[in-house]
């Protein structure tokens, strides 16, 4: 028998670590969605450059939606800081060993690229702006009119999206003290989950904000450019089907990576196998297998397969479930990971 007592009783550390609340899962989720949307929008931009999809419907305003979503994530991240007035200190240095430092700088570049990607199509959605700000119209004409530039912007979106999607997983993965996070699979898992959630967000946006003639004038136009996230033209059925088909692939890979994550932990050292018990019989079992795997992956996988086979009508239900599952994955990993400890397992 081993009994350990300690007089340490620091808030947020004892009895078990709880330094991150709702803010970090929200940020990781939104970051993943934006990463997925950047990759998909980047691919669409490359198709526009090749002339395969002249309308390139989902590249049109996807960066703008991503830009708005990222603001929500950054707000959550800021609210999490305990010393927020010193946030500028992040941009006085680059710490190559710190995933958070990488992330901070990558986010700055992501913001710039999303802004350029959104602005080049803004005069289309909001002609008033194009007329009043000729520079913007010129920028838009320059990039949209040159396939080479469009292709380059597409590639930049894809590469940044991959980095953004993977870094959120690596951020947790590098913390040796939390065995549940000590697996590099978290990086690709969060990336694929982000791709799937990004596809779901685009799907949802096409349903909620279908194309319609844009209102005229300053206010109406601005509103249309914000709300009609996918531009004035509704996407064709084939395009929607291709998003759903891609999402089937993402969900299948996500399922595979979750399997590998569990196997990896169970076959690793005692502390890691112990950490895996948090989702295998422990307090996070139901939310993980019921919320993340069943509701977030298996059900939408089945529904979308049936939709593609024309067995059931298209609805937004799978997209909503995928988004909920994507958030649940981050919520479980952040919370269960904080509970997992080296000391506890080693002592037990």
């Amino acid at each position, binding site marked *: 028998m*081993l009994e350990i007592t*300690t*007089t*340490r009783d620091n808030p947020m550390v004892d009895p078990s670590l709880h330094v991150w609340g709702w803010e970090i899962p929200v940020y990781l989720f939104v970051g993943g969605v934006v990463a997925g949307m950047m990759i998909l929008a980047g691919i669409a931009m490359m198709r526009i450059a090749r002339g395969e999809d002249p309308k390139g419907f989902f590249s049109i305003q996807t960066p703008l939606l991503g830009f708005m979503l990222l603001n929500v994530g950054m707000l959550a991240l800021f609210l999490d800081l305990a010393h927020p007035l010193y946030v500028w200190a992040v941009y006085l240095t680059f710490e190559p060993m710190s995933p958070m430092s990488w992330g901070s700088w990558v986010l700055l570049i992501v913001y710039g690229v999303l802004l350029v990607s959104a602005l080049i199509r803004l005069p289309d959605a909001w002609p008033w702006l194009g007329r009043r700000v000729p520079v913007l119209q010129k920028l838009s004409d320059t990039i949209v009119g040159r396939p080479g530039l469009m292709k380059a912007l597409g590639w930049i979106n894809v590469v940044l999206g991959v980095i953004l999607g993977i870094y959120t997983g690596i951020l947790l993965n590098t913390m040796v003290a939390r065995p549940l996070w000590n697996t590099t699979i978290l990086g690709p898992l969060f990336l694929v989950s982000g791709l799937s959630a990004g596809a779901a967000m685009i799907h949802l946006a096409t349903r909620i904000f279908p194309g319609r003639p844009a209102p005229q004038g300053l206010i109406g136009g601005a509103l249309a450019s914000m709300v009609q996230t996918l531009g004035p033209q509704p996407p064709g059925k084939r395009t929607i089907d291709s998003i759903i088909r891609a999402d089937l692939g993402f969900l299948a890979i996500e399922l595979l990576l979750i399997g590998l994550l569990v196997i990896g932990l169970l076959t690793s*050292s005692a502390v890691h196998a112990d950490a895996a018990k948090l989702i295998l019989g422990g307090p996070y079992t139901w939310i993980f297998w019921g919320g993340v795997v069943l509701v977030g992956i298996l059900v939408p996988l089945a529904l979308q397969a049936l939709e593609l086979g024309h067995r059931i009508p298209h609805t937004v239900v799978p997209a909503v479930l995928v988004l909920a599952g994507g958030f649940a994955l981050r919520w479980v990993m952040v919370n269960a990971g904080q509970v997992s400890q080296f000391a506890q397992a080693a002592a037990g």
Partner: protein
Amino acid sequence: MARFGMVIDTRKCVGCMDCVVACQTENDVPEGYCRDWITTEVRGTFPSLTMEIRSERCNHCDNPPCVYCCPTGASHVENFGKTVQVTANRCIGCKACVAACPYGARFINPKGYADKCTFCMHRVKEGKDPACVSVCPTRCMHFGDLDDPKSPVNELLRTRTHHTLLPEAGTKPRVYYLT
């Protein structure tokens, strides 16, 4: 250049918590928080029991995960004594270091920045021992340079059996416990 470490004799420690109180007084640690603490480990089945009492704190690791994860460089290894320190006005309070430490040695000061044991560098620079070491009534705590083969801490490590906390975490801790 020195590389400071601590050697604590668990055969002498009685868990009186003088070190804890001395630290809180010396470093003005906010109420309800602690930079060092006492851990009691009891093994066996009654009546065959063994007990180890330890005064624990930041291990000023040679391979410090809290320093690696810090996005601003606020957590850093100081040149003098190679100790791990926090620059409060560079810390953004992201709490990554608190999550990264396997020893739970860090906390967020109510003022917002990450806080922990400093090995009382302000005292050491004046040639004194850290507050916890200087008040220990059983003289079970020893502070010194691990890079100096003739230092008393190295003499103890050479002649006595000892262990560190969670060596399997790979952090290379510099607080040693004599058994």
